[in-house]
């Protein structure tokens, strides 16, 4: 990247992050709590999905053993 490209790209990113709207959204604690809540829900989904998968695997194994 040339020097002027660096100025334009990096300065542009800085400008976007300094705009009022972006700062208001990203720096508000309610937004952060919402994000944390979403992550927690997704982690729970991950746990449930993995448990279901394991159960399905066990069931499949039992069925395979029975057929033999």
């Amino acid at each position: 990247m040339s020097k002027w490209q660096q100025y334009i790209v990096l300065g542009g990113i800085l400008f976007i992050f300094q705009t009022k709207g972006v700062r208001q959204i990203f720096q508000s604690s309610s937004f952060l709590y919402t994000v944390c809540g979403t992550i927690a829900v997704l982690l729970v989904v991950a746990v449930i999905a993995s448990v279901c998968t394991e159960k399905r695997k066990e069931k499949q194994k039992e069925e395979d053993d029975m057929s033999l």
Partner: protein
Amino acid sequence: MVKQKRLLLQKDRIARIVCVLLFVFCLTCLSGCSLVSGGSQGNEAVNAEKETMSCWTCSLFELAFRVIDSMSVNLMASIADSSVSLLGVCYALWLAIYILKYVSAMNAPDTGAFWKGLAVQTFFVTLGAGMLRDLGSGSSSSVIEMITDPIFTGFVDTGLMIINASGLSFSCPSQGSPEAGMVCLISALQGKLNVSVGISYLSIVAGPTIFVMMVGAGIYCVSIFMMLYFPVLLLDCVFRYCILIALLPLIVVAFCFKITRGFAKQGGQIMVEIGLAIVGMCVFTAVTVEVIHQYIDEFIPYVRNPLYFLDDPSSMDKVMNGPGITGLIFVILFLIYFADVILDLMGMFSEGAGGLGKTAQSTYSGVKNLSKTGMQAARFGINRGMRIKDKKAIKDREKLMKKQGSGKELTDKEKKKLEKANDRLSDRGFLATDRKGNLHKTQAYDNLNKGKGLRNWAKGIGEDWHSNPMRSSLDRRDHSANKVSDGFKGYLDD
């Protein structure tokens, strides 16, 4: 005529003229240049010399450095706060996609690998969140204090270490602060350029002819331009570094995810590029200082005491019209032009950021050798010019002496010509004067007048390449070594 006027008033020409006028205006404002009103020219020159003693670019540089630094720290703290939420959003998106991939797999998915991938990513995100919290609060254990600042300082210190290790006529010890190191270099540069500013200021204020004033203005302009240009180039590197610092929170966020790790890598590359540019600029600034120092010492050592010329306007005229001053303008312009090339060169080196010290050292040696060869070439040019003039003086003298010897009377013009030739040859040590004022040929005179031929020509070229114009003149004037060749046995005048 009308066509010429129209040509002069073309749009691009007007822009150029306005630029030149603006440049001269800026320089005049910066210099505090004033007309001599009240008080003598001597007082004005003394004041000018006093003014050149202080490093005014240093305070400008320090101010700009601090402003850029504090601006970047404030920006970084603000962006770090936003970046925590951004990191959370990115992590949530990553998690959603990761779970979807796991759930929608056609084959039976590997639960162990799933949880391993999740744990690794969570570790990176937790680490990133911790770093961002530290950056936001300005903790002394933050990434900036522990990693980026020491790296940047290290680059500046590398440049200073190369300078100190190369045995230049000045030294800038690494003080652990990049600002102090750069200010030391700028101060040294201004110290050397103050000599040319002093003589040029004096030429403008008390120059005996308009040509001297114009040459003085030329040197003044290029010196002031160089004084400003080099700090600006250093500040350019600092500015880019500070933009990078302001973006550090985003680089940390990018580092946490595999897909955006390239962005963080780009940040690292820019950091190395800026660091190498700083090393190159520090070393080149030092080389510039040394080149100017050496040039002044070798070609125009008398300008170190410009006040001497106040009592002797004819000497000032001679010096300002001489090749030394013109050469100084060319040397300064060459160095200004080459500074940009250095930045490009260091940019190219940073593409493969290996062998840092070796690269910087080889660049430094290359620049130093190039400058040395440039100086030698300039010296050779001056010597050749001097030799041609000396030969012409000998030829004129011989011709006129022959005419005088044959009993013919010389015209006033010829007498003046003979006197001028004798003066030149005496000054250059080709003729020796005895106590009665008679002139005698020396061995150097005979050697120079040996005639044509390839051997003599090659010998002359060799001598001109290796000798110093001023020193060889002084050596010839020592008549214990350069003896009189016409058989005179009496005492010679010193």
